[in-house]
């Protein structure tokens, strides 16, 4: 009952109520209340995630699994940031100030560590995309050639150089200039492809949502019961 029936019942009831709320304004209160409950559960999920991370890394240190010294780094960083944030350590405005107030330890953790680390991790991708362009991007067949030509037009068209390269075209043929071609590709061919993908995904989401609400799809329960 607890493992399968009750969760499936909760899912179905909540799902049905929200679908009905879409059609009847009288259910607005139900819609906003359930949304609030979802938001709160989402916030608790972050605490669950943090707790799980701590447990996982402490376990790794305890069992001396490969890479365990780095897990100590993770645990220390986690606890430092957590304590600094939960207790608003160094916050000049005290308990009533925002947790990320200037000068607080939590703000230091964000500005000195989180910000540069996340930004640099993502900037690494520039190097990898350059390497991939050189080593893997080959016009091996018709499809790859189409992809390559479209990419080249877009890359040129999104910069000043694209306009300069085709500025010599007479006015009646200006629609063939690289910036205009680039805009046309984005707003026509790309739009068509992206729309096909969106409609396809949309149909998938709609059918899966319906199956979940009707209790047919139970993989979210995990384990044998799904």
């Amino acid at each position, binding site marked *: 009952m607890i493992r399968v029936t009750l969760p499936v019942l909760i899912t179905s009831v909540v799902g049905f109520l929200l679908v009905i709320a879409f059609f009847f304004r009288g259910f607005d209160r139900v819609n906003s209340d359930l949304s609030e409950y979802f*938001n709160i559960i*989402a916030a608790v999920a972050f605490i669950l995630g943090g707790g799980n991370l701590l447990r996982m890394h402490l376990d790794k240190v305890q069992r001396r699994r490969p890479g365990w010294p780095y897990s100590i780094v993770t645990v220390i960083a986690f606890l430092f940031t957590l304590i600094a944030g939960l207790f608003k350590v160094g916050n000049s405005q005290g308990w009533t100030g925002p947790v990320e107030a200037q000068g607080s330890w939590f703000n230091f953790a964000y500005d000195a560590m989180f910000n540069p680390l996340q930004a640099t991790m993502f900037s690494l991708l520039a190097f990898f995309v*350059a390497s991939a362009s*050189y080593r893997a991007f080959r016009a091996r067949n018709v499809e790859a050639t189409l992809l390559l030509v479209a990419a080249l037009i877009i890359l040129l068209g999104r910069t000043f150089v694209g306009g300069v390269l085709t500025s010599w075209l007479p006015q009646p043929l200006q629609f063939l200039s690289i910036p205009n071609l680039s805009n046309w590709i984005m707003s026509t061919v790309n739009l068509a492809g*992206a729309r096909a993908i969106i409609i396809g995904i949309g149909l998938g989401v709609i059918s899966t949502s319906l199956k979940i609400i009707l209790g047919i799809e139970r993989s979210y329960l995990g384990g044998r019961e799904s």
Partner: protein
Amino acid sequence: MSPAGGSLFDRIGRVDRRWIYVAIALAVIIPLMAKLTFPVITTPIVQNIFDKLDSLPEGSRVILTADFGPSTVPENMPMIQAVLRHALHKKLKVYLLTLWATGIPQLDLLEKNVLAADFPDRVAGTDWVNLGYKAGNQGVINSAFSDFPGAFPVDSKGHDVRTLPIMAGIKRLADFNLIVGIGSGFPGVKEWIQFGGDPAHVPVAAGVTAVEAPLLYPYYPRQLLGLMGGLQGAAEYEAALVKRYPEYQSRSEEAIKRMGPQTVAHLVIIAFIVLGNIAFFAGGEFKGRKRA
């Protein structure tokens, strides 16, 4: 498989990737140091956003969301700063909020770099409000749809929103005139369209990273009135702002300045693609495949 060493083209095709990394780093660093800039022309898809904001009457209510983190600041921050400057110049009521925890510092930067620096006469709680972050992704938009003050009971400074003059008359999402979503993924612009703009019939404009932009074109122009895609989109909005209001020239050209390194890096990437393909077709790998 080509013999060890191989022809010149084979060796070109197998160059160590670390040389490619050096080349792309130089392609960005040198134009940055040389302060290389190029003129920027605003395309219609961006101009639509500018024209919409420019046409809103004084006192119109605009939600401006900072749904991004430090990883996409170079693309998203110039967009949101330019839009905020424009909105404040037009004396619109601006409601800042974010669906990302990492959006909170971005809102703080907006308060410091735009509000305090360029519009110190505007009063928090009356002309603008920072509603901060709420967890829940699309659930936040869904609860704001029917009960906006309920979803955001306090602003970022802890004031009860019901006591703020700017929140007078705001009950639900439909009470707003425009939503401008500046985002870089989930939750973001797509969720604002699906859960906000479409059901509440509020126009939505967007500024997103270049990665996300191609997938949002299907929503333009009916569900999305305009779209700033990546650094180029940000530069185009800045260009439109500076063209109409030249007094912001010194403050609103961050993206325009970054288009210099962007352009050079694009040319380097194109050169890599062309060189790689020449090495492939002229080298042993392609000839070996043909024989096979």
